[in-house]
């Protein structure tokens, strides 16, 4: 597989380490009253869609960026890749 790195162009998937669902960016508020339940969901529950999936890949053998890669899990087609940092920052700005 090839990952279209937003800074470095297409890179072989072997350079990356896979983590999983990009929802991991949305760490729950630890001070919320239902924090434990929210963290339980965050840590243990993932959607497992057959189709388009946003997921985190780490360019470990490269520039060490975390990417949010949009991939179709059925065809392995990669629909896009963004710097996870930018995704996270835009959510912070939008107040999540």
């Amino acid at each position: 597989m090839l990952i279209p790195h937003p800074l470095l162009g297409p890179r072989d998937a072997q350079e990356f380490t896979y983590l999983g669902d990009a929802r991991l960016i949305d760490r729950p508020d630890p001070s919320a009253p239902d924090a434990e339940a929210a963290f339980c969901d965050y840590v243990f529950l993932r959607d497992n869609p057959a189709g388009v999936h946003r997921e985190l890949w780490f360019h470990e053998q490269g520039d060490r960026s975390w990417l949010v890669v949009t991939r179709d899990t059925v065809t392995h087609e990669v629909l896009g890749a963004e710097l996870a940092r930018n995704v996270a920052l835009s959510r912070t700005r939008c107040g999540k």
Partner: protein
Amino acid sequence: MTRLTGGLIDRSQTLNFSFDGKRYQGHPGDTLASALLANGVRLMGRSFKYHRPRGVLSAGSEEPNALVELRTGARQEPNTRAAVVELFEGLEARSQNRWPSLGFDALAINDLLSPFLTAGFYYKTFMWPKGFWEKLYEPAIRRAAGLGRLSMQADPDTYDKGFLHCDFLVIGGGAAGLAAALTAARGGARVILADEDFRLGGRLLSETGTLDGGQATDWVSALEAEFESLPNIRVMRRTTVFGVYDHGIYGAVESVSDHLPEASGRVRQTLWRITAKRAVLAAGATERPIAFADNDRPGIMLAGAMRTYANRWAACPSETVAVFTNNDDGHRTARDLAAKDVQIAAVIDARPEAKARGDYRLIAGGMVTGSRGRLGLKSIEVQANGRSEWIECGALGVSGGWNPNVHLFSHHRGRPIWNESLQAFLPGEDGPPGLIPAGAAAANFSTADALRSGAQAAKRAMDELGIAASSPDLPRAEEADYKVAPVFNVPGKKRAWVDFQNDVTVKDIKLAHAENMRPVEHLKRYTTLGMATDQGKTANVTGLAVMAELTGRTIPETGTTIFRPPYIPVTLSVLGGGDIGRHYRPRRLTPTNHWAEGQGAVFVEVGQWMRAQYFPRAGETHWRQSVDREAGAVRSAVGLCDVTTLGKIDVQGADAGEFLNRLYCNIMATLKVGRVRYGLMLREDGFAYDDGTCARLAEDHYVVTTTTANAGLVYRNMEFARQCLWSDLDVQLISTTDAWAQIAVAGPKSRALLARIVDGFDLSNEAFPFMACAELTVCDGLRARLFRISFSGELAYEVAVPARFGHALIERLMELGADLGATPYGTEALGVLRIEKGHAAGPELSGQTTAAMVGLGSMVSQKKDSVGAVMSRRGGLAGDRRRLVGLRPVDPAGKVVSGSHLFAEGAPRKCDTDQGWVTSACYSPHVRSMIGLGFLEKGDERLGEVIVAANPLEGESARLLVVPACFVDPEGERLRE
């Protein structure tokens, strides 16, 4: 049989080879199979199950019968297909699966026992007694039914891996592939043309049809010369594309020196990973046989292959041949062989309307219903118009029609589509993106159609890539129609083979049908149809057709055969490439590795690192002697240990403290500059996962360490936290593990030793107390970092210098510390010292233990959030009352074994009475007995109790005394001296 006229062999040179010890001669350009046929050898192997005599069936990689052992000694290679083995001087081949000889095979008795050996026989026959399967039946079956033998020696050859990139990959070098490559190459695209044969041309080499009125091989030669002159095309002969992977990545194996007597310094094969923007599948088509009684005798082969042997290799299995066909193509074989003065006994065409294409006897509407000849064909039985006759012939060419080679098109689960008029599966619409089928692989069977479709496929690909290419002038070529009748199987009572390699007959398919194994997936597994090394290339469609006939349904209703990689057998050696033995994975060496080697150290692999385990000295006969001595030196004098392998991460930025606060469960932001703090990290699920030290070198600069094993993981998680969770913080990270050589200097005399290398730095306890850190210079100006931290419980430091000075530093320390008793120690002594001190390490931080369990529960700050803090408070974790304790045997000579489980004395040893386990154990020279650490239920309240450590694996148990998890200096005074 001698050679025919013509052929693409170099008769000016002779190559000597042997088969089953008998010597033969062939020519450059021959395959093993063609040379054997030219020497009159029809019998080349024995079948898998029934040990039936077999000859070569095909002239390509689909070959199911002629499997031989090639070469000798360690290079012996089983199951090579004689049809694709390129002849070389001195080639030695042996037949396989026969004893004592190919001509007389004792296990041919299996053929007489065939009524008992039908599909699924082993499921039924060898059911009982139960124990007999493993001990008796399976070994016996494996001996009797089998393929070639391995040499049982290590493979002496070398293999390589390579990466290639191109705009356009052409798979197959026949008419379609050549036209495609020409179109794209002239357009300027970067082209790779891969063909599995050693000579380009594909079927053009097998046929007599002309191109522009001239020999097809002349046209191919002209093209090869043009390709040679173009910088943008790479022609790869002997290269089989075996798989299609994601995003235009293709796997291919190139036989680099398989065809040479000696590899002479070259690799044997190369595994290529080819990334192509577009590709054309011009893999041609494979002819299929027709199943009739005794259709597997040596001499019976595919009609197209018979033509190939005659036209390309001037070889024919017999002077008198017959042809059995259900399509026009079979007639070409008769025509071409007749032109080479081979006698055509008859052409039997199953179609009543068939017409002769030459001067030979045609039996239209006929069927071959039987054959004779024990080790080679002697005659065939033909039935036509209600009459039956035996016709003498030494070879029979059979054509049941052509199956396009759609294999690669199915590698992404694309389903081929049945075409009724062509009686074949064709590529559908759901193939791998960017892969365009052309030529016979897309059922363009005439040469003219193949050329056109290849050029069109290339044009389409170039258009998609925005490369201006125009279709080249293609040569005039044969435009014959291909008409085929649906004849797969001649009804009869005797066995008729469908899958030659796995000995699957029409009877087996009928049995599968009768026993309701009708879906194609069940059929395959019950009969083993298509499961041999040829993956049923000549068998699958026929098997499906027979099942369709039995069920009264159409072929597409019955099922589809789809294919997975690899297209041909690929050896594990080439998949491994050079990554074997020491090169299996990277080996990381510490900066003092060469020095330690010089000291005679024994090394141990820790992850990718090679670390010194202990340093034996003259007279020491047991590793324990060395380890006890090394640990003793640390307790009484000073020891030196390379701790470079611990992960080091440099954390800088205005928010570095806040960032680390959120990563460690304890508080790091309040750490003063020039101080070090122990830190524990939790996973987000609340379990402890790594520990280390955190040194603050400046307001905005920390250096943190991780365990050796988790160095990569911790760094990855820290980057995740920085980029994904708290991207608004001003913090930067870099791993500096490899940049700094770090040496632990531990023991009561460590300060005295360090004083001899620091450049005017005050090491006094007041100026540089326990848990201090500083940047300084040593050895007259060498930049260094000094940390006063201790893993052993003694007065200790760790000193770091740029990695390239690590070797020099340890030499200097050893030299200057000789009078102080400076002693190098390895990971064993390191382990003993830390167990004596009760420090948690890998066995305690196993990923299933909490901060509270390792006695660090109070470290989890309640004042702030950090990774894992919320989940560490959940009931299941907070309620865990197992605690880290020290353990020592009641009997001082007794053993403590890590992994043992702990029980109250007298309690039954079951899961529900289990009270914990021993995590670490060693012999302690300080305590003078074995000691251990372990987790024990409410262990902190049970000091002084005697418990039982059970080791049921070894049938051992021991009585242990529960003590505090610290055997040395519990007050920590030595650290602070």
